[in-house]
């Protein structure tokens, strides 16, 4: 390294040191920093306590539901599908960091014959008004509090130097403004790192001491932290850019707060409405009505119900080698196959309507990700929920698994009826041996790459914000007036 480079490095180190001392000596920021850290730790502890309670509650509920199924007594297997079984969505192991849309979504699905039920029993539907106002979570703290802390730390970075006259002195000493900019950014990042890394470590320690539930997905934790790291860098760069261009500290503060209010408070809600207007969803009533109509008459514009069920019946008869020889079939087998044909038709209806609904919701999410180019908070919010496993894409994945399980269970029961009922027909009963054959419902959330595949637009948006804000800050620092 030559002398010039050495000088720059030592200058940057000196600036970082100076920035560090300035912040550490400021009582207001000491207080704000301690308060932010405490709030984050409290939010994490409360979040963990809630998530753990929910986790155990759902596990216990799953066991009880299974017990109900196993001990339903002797009955006809098809009647057993009407009795059905409840399955419960497991809690994401990072839901204590960001509960996302979990509280608003159903967590239990009734698995039964003839019906694909939507998940129900969302926590929010039985909550008081204060819950609708919003709870304090780690995600809220990271999305709102830390950027405010950054603004508080950085709004005067350039303006206060100018107001005190020290910027002119620094410039006259031969220090290049870009070097000063790197030093100031480094100083701010050092303060933030000193604050947030121990907080994350302490939080991790607290959670480990309290005990884990679910598998610990290190990849998701790292991705979660990286997303927020980039988000904080965006706010550092934006605030420094504002400070470089503002005429006075108060102007810089008002502008930086204005940016925060616009992008973190207003934009996410406004853009969510824009998404809703671009891709409206049917009301619950419209959906229920459309499903009922199709189950009664057949899918819109397609083969009527009776003909479609007949087609499925023929397929099944052909598979069993009885096509054209129905009269020779045992009656129970015929009835069992008819039930299966009807179930196939019902599955087709559910696939059509719920598929359309999920496609619309998926399209809304894609729009929201594109619109996050207008707000880094929207981008990080999407990523945060996705890495925590509490976004709607995870919910849809769970719902698809539950439906797959329902179909397998119904088929298992109807098959047993068709195969074993014989002359008993509807008076045939099965017992605990058959109920025990039904596999236990297990759901594992998808891996990190699946999440990234769904969220690449948010990643891109956040990276664009980082590059855009970084370049702006750099350009403004170079062109900044010294006096």
């Amino acid at each position: 390294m030559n002398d010039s480079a050495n000088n720059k490095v030592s200058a940057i180190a000196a600036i970082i040191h100076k920035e560090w001392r300035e912040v550490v000596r400021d009582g207001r920021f000491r207080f704000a920093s301690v308060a932010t850290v405490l709030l984050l730790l409290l939010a994490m502890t409360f979040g963990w306590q809630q998530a753990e309670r929910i986790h155990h509650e759902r596990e216990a509920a799953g066991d009880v539901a299974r017990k109900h199924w196993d001990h339903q007594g002797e009955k006809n297997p098809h009647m057993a599908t009407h009795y059905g079984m409840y399955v419960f969505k497991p809690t994401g192991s990072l839901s204590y960091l960001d509960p996302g849309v979990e509280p608003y979504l159903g967590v239990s699905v009734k698995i039964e014959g003839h019906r694909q039920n939507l998940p129900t029993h969302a926590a929010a539907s039985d909550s008081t008004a204060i819950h609708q106002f919003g709870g304090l979570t780690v995600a809220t703290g990271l999305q709102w509090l830390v950027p405010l802390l950054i603004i508080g730390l950085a709004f005067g970075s350039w303006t206060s130097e100018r107001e005190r006259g020290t910027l002119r002195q620094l410039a006259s000493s031969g220090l290049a403004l870009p070097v000063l900019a790197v030093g100031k950014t480094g100083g701010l990042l050092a303060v933030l790192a000193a604050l947030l890394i121990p907080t994350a470590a302490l939080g991790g320690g607290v959670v480990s001491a309290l005990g884990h539930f679910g598998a610990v997905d290190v990849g998701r934790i790292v991705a979660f932290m990286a997303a927020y790291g980039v988000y904080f860098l965006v706010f550092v760069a934006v605030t420094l850019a504002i400070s470089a261009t503002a005429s006075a500290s108060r102007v810089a503060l008002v502008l930086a707060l204005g940016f925060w209010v616009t992008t973190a408070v207003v934009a996410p809600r406004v853009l969510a409405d824009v998404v809703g207007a671009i891709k409206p969803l049917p009301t619950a009533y419209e959906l229920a009505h459309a499903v009922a109509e199709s189950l009664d008459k057949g899918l819109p514009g397609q083969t009527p119900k009776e003909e479609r069920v007949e087609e499925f019946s023929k397929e099944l008869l052909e598979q069993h080698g009885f096509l054209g020889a129905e009269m020779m079939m045992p009656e129970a087998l015929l009835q069992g196959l008819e039930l299966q044909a009807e179930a196939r038709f019902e599955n087709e209806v559910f696939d059509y309507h719920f598929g359309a609904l999920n496609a619309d919701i998926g399209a809304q999410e894609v729009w929201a990700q594109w619109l996050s180019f207008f707000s880094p908070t929207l981008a990080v919010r999407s990523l945060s929920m996705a890495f925590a496993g509490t976004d709607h894409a995870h919910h849809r994945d769970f719902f698809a698994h539950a439906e797959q399980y329902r179909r397998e269970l119904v088929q298992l029961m109807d098959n047993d009826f068709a195969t074993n009922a014989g002359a008993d027909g509807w008076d045939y009963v099965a017992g605990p041996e058959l109920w025990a054959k039904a596999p236990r419902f297990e759901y594992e959330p998808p891996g990190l790459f699946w999440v990234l595949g769904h969220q690449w637009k948010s990643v891109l948006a956040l990276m664009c914000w980082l590059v855009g804000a970084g370049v702006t800050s750099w350009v403004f620092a170079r062109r900044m007036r010294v006096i």
Partner: protein
Amino acid sequence: MLQTVIRVEWRNLRRETSAWITVSVFAALVVWAALNGRTHTDVMTQSVQEAHSEQQQQMQQWVSALAAGDENAQDAYKAGKDHVHQVVALPLSPLASISMGGLSDTVLRVSLASRLESTGEAHVGSPVRQATGPFDVTFVFVYLLPLVVIGLSYDLLSGERERGTLALILSQPVSLVTFTLGKAIQRALVLLGVVFTLATVAPWLAGGDLSEPGAPARLGLYLLLVAAYTTFWFAAAVAVNAWGSTSAGNALALMACWLVLIVILPGFVSVGVDVVVPQPSRIELLNLAREAAAEAEQEASQMEGDHAPDRETLKDRYRATVKRSLEVQQELESTVKPVLEQFQAQLSEQQALVDKLRFVSPAIILYEGLTDVAGVGVDRRSWYLSQVDRFHDQWRSFFSEKAANDQSVTAADIAALPRFHYAEEPTGKLTLRVMLGSLGLVFPTAVLLLLAWRGLRRPDAVSLR
């Protein structure tokens, strides 16, 4: 002298471009939120209308079948179970558009089904909106109005200090208290004028019928809440200016207040309430209910799942099945009832705690107050659901008694079918709740003004510390 200060401040304010930009942006956001509320209430209204029209259609088909002597239609059990139902909905209040939460699960289908089954339609909501919350008038007033107040008043005094004009002004026969008060009053009056206009226009823009009975009282309470909240934030700004130093310091202190009162304290209350009185769990309720009613539910599912083709042709066996079904349903109801009551009691206990804790933050008071006057609050919902419960009992009795006694339904019975008439919650109850909440805004405002008065009377209040 106060009048002179107010007059001079008005002249200053007229020339302050940033203030007018802030107010204009705020006005635009209120209009956006109001129009958003209109879309929301339109969807709700349309959804209810569709449900009603389907119900009417079904009813007409049933009536025609009755007239044609169709045995299936005359069968009281089948009629109550499959042919006819009632859609009940909580009517939208004239101010419903200002708050977009809370009404989604109040459109219910009442049928012969047991209460465990008829808990309403599953909610399909936009996950993107659920993640962020709705952009409604309530959000704009609770979250953004204080930011406008802060923007207009953070440098009320410090700006004069920093420009060096404060000493000059105070060399005139005007006290610091009068001067600060005059400036604050002028800005508060302008903002209150804008807010009152917007607050009145917003429900109208959103299609609310303000001539409906009870609408003027709701509008009055709504304006009272918004005015008290605005005044609270102006009082906070005056207090911070009285004790603060630089404009930047004041802005930071006021933002910290905003954060604490609007984000942190409500967040803690929300979490704290769950810790002290855990939120009752529907999942637990579901299992408890299934456990309690295991036998009855199994029998019910067995009857429902019995698709044997000859069952219905055997009349005696069919009648026995119907009677047993009704008995099973009754058993299901009575075993589940105490579990449901316990669940409701736990929910009420939690709400009672929230009602007490709302006084820790003006934002909670305003939020709860606005949802209340919008008619989407917890109390109106409970009031409505208790009426639905009573109606459900009437509806079920009508069909189940006939079915139990082997009586057919005839065309003459149609006029006797129970009808749902929602009786609105007395305005007095709403007024009492909102007025009590308003006290939680007035009291801290008075404390802040007292604090400001003391700060402004300090000997060193004029100088820049």
